[in-house]
C-alpha cells in the first residue's frame, strides 16, 4: 500500500518536471542554451589542434609503431612510384650523356687523335667522360698525432681538424687490426667517393675523389702526391704555414690538370 502511494508521488514529480522542461520554458531555455553550445562548438573548432593535437599525435605514433607492416603496405605503392619515376629520370639523363659522349668520342677526328696519342679503350673513354674523376678534398696530416697540417677543399668543411683526427684513428685501427706485417691503409670507398691515402715517413696525404678513377689517373695522382711530399719535406717551412701549404697543394694537385686518359 505504502509503496503504491510512494510511486504515485514520484510519477507526479516526474510529470511536473517534464512539463517544466518541455512545455512553456523550453523555448526560453533554448534561447539561453543554444548560443552557449554554439560558442563551445566554435571554440572547439578553432582550438581543436591545441586541445587534442598532442593526444592524436600520440595515438597516431602508437598506431604506426604497432602496425608497421600495415603502414609499409600503405606507403609502398606511393614510394615505389616515386622511386621508379626518379630512377627513370636519372637513367634518361645518363643515357643522353652517354649518347652525346659516344657521338663526340667516336668521331673520325677523335679516333685519329687517340690513335696517335695511344691510351684507353672506348668503354674507358666513355666512362671517364661521363664520370670524370674530381679531387674534392686534400688533407695533409701528421702521421702520429693526426694534426692537420694543410688542406684543400671544394666544399666548406667545418670540422676538418676532427676529420683528420678521426681519419688517423681509423687508419691506425685498421692497420693494427688487420695487418699481419707493417702495412698501411691505402683506400677507403664510400658511396660515390674514394679516399686514397699516400703514406710518407712523418706525414700522410689523404685525397677524396669523386667519379671513376682509372689507372692512368691514379698513376698521375700518385706522381703528383710524391712531388708534393718532396717539396713539403725538403722545405719544412710549409709545415708551419697552413696558407703556404694550401697554395702549393692547389698548385700541384688541383690546378695541374690530371689527365684522365
Amino acid at each position, binding site marked *: 500500500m505504502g509503496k503504491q502511494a510512494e510511486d504515485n508521488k514520484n510519477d507526479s514529480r516526474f510529470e511536473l518536471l517534464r512539463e517544466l522542461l518541455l512545455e512553456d520554458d523550453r523555448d526560453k531555455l533554448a534561447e539561453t542554451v543554444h548560443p552557449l553550445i554554439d560558442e563551445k562548438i566554435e571554440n572547439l573548432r578553432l582550438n581543436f589542434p591545441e586541445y587534442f593535437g598532442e593526444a592524436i599525435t600520440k595515438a597516431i605514433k602508437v598506431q604506426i609503431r604497432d602496425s608497421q607492416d600495415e603502414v609499409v603496405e600503405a606507403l609502398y605503392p606511393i614510394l615505389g612510384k616515386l622511386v621508379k619515376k626518379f630512377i627513370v629520370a636519372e637513367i634518361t639523363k645518363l643515357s643522353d650523356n652517354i649518347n652525346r659522349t659516344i657521338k663526340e668520342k667516336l668521331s673520325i677526328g677523335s679516333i685519329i687523335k687517340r690513335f696517335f696519342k695511344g691510351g684507353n679503350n672506348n668503354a674507358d673513354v666513355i666512362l671517364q667522360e661521363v664520370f670524370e674523376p674530381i679531387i674534392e678534398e686534400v688533407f695533409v696530416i701528421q702521421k*702520429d*698525432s693526426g*694534426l692537420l697540417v694543410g688542406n684543400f677543399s671544394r666544399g666548406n668543411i667545418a670540422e676538418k681538424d676532427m676529420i683528420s*683526427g678521426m681519419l688517423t684513428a681509423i687508419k*691506425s*685501427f685498421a692497420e*693494427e687490426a688487420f695487418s699481419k706485417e707493417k702495412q698501411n691503409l691505402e683506400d677507403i670507398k664510400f658511396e660515390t667517393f674514394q679516399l686514397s691515402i699516400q703514406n710518407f715517413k712523418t706525414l700522410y696525404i689523404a685525397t677524396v675523389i669523386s667519379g671513376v678513377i682509372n689507372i692512368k689517373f691514379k698513376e698521375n695522382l700518385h706522381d703528383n702526391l710524391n712531388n708534393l711530399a718532396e717539396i713539403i719535406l725538403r722545405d719544412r717551412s710549409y709545415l708551419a704555414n697552413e696558407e703556404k701549404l694550401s697554395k702549393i697543394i692547389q698548385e700541384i694537385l688541383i690546378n695541374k690538370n690530371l689527365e684522365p686518359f
Partner: protein
Amino acid sequence: MIAKKVLLVGNFGVGKTSLIRRFVQNKFSEDYISTIGVRVSSKVVEFENNEVKLLIWDVAGTSGDEKIPKAYFLGASAAMFVFDLSRSETYLTIENYIESIKDLSGLKEVTIVGNKRDLLTKEELKTVTDSISVKINIITSAKEDANVEDAFLKLASQALK
C-alpha cells in the same frame, strides 16, 4: 695557431665523453657513444694569452685492453686519466694505468681527474681520495659542470710545457 693532440684515457663509463661534451659543446648528454675505441673532438682554448687548438682524443681503455691500438697514444702533448669516484674498479689499479699511459705516449706527466663528484657525499669523497695512492689533480662533475673547464686548462698547460 698552435695545435696539440691531447689524450683522455680511462675505463668505459667513467664520464670522459661527458667531460668532453661539457667542455666542447657545453651541454650534457646521457648518451653513451660506442666507437672504434676513440673519438676525436677539437676545441680552441685561450691559455696565458695563447690560443691553443686542442685535438682531444677520447681513448676508451689503456694498453691492457687489446682492442685499443697503441698508435692512438703517439704524438700526444698531454694526457688526462679520468676515473669514476663512485666505482672503485676504475681506480683500484690507477698506478698501473698511469704507468701504461706514460709508456705508450712517452709523456712524463699525466693529469689525474676524479669524475662524478655529484654521486658522492663529502664523507664518501674523503674516504675515496684517502684510499687512492696517487695525487688527484682535479675533482670534477660533468653533470653539474663543476671544474670541467679547469681540468682542460690544466691539460692545455701541460701540452704547452
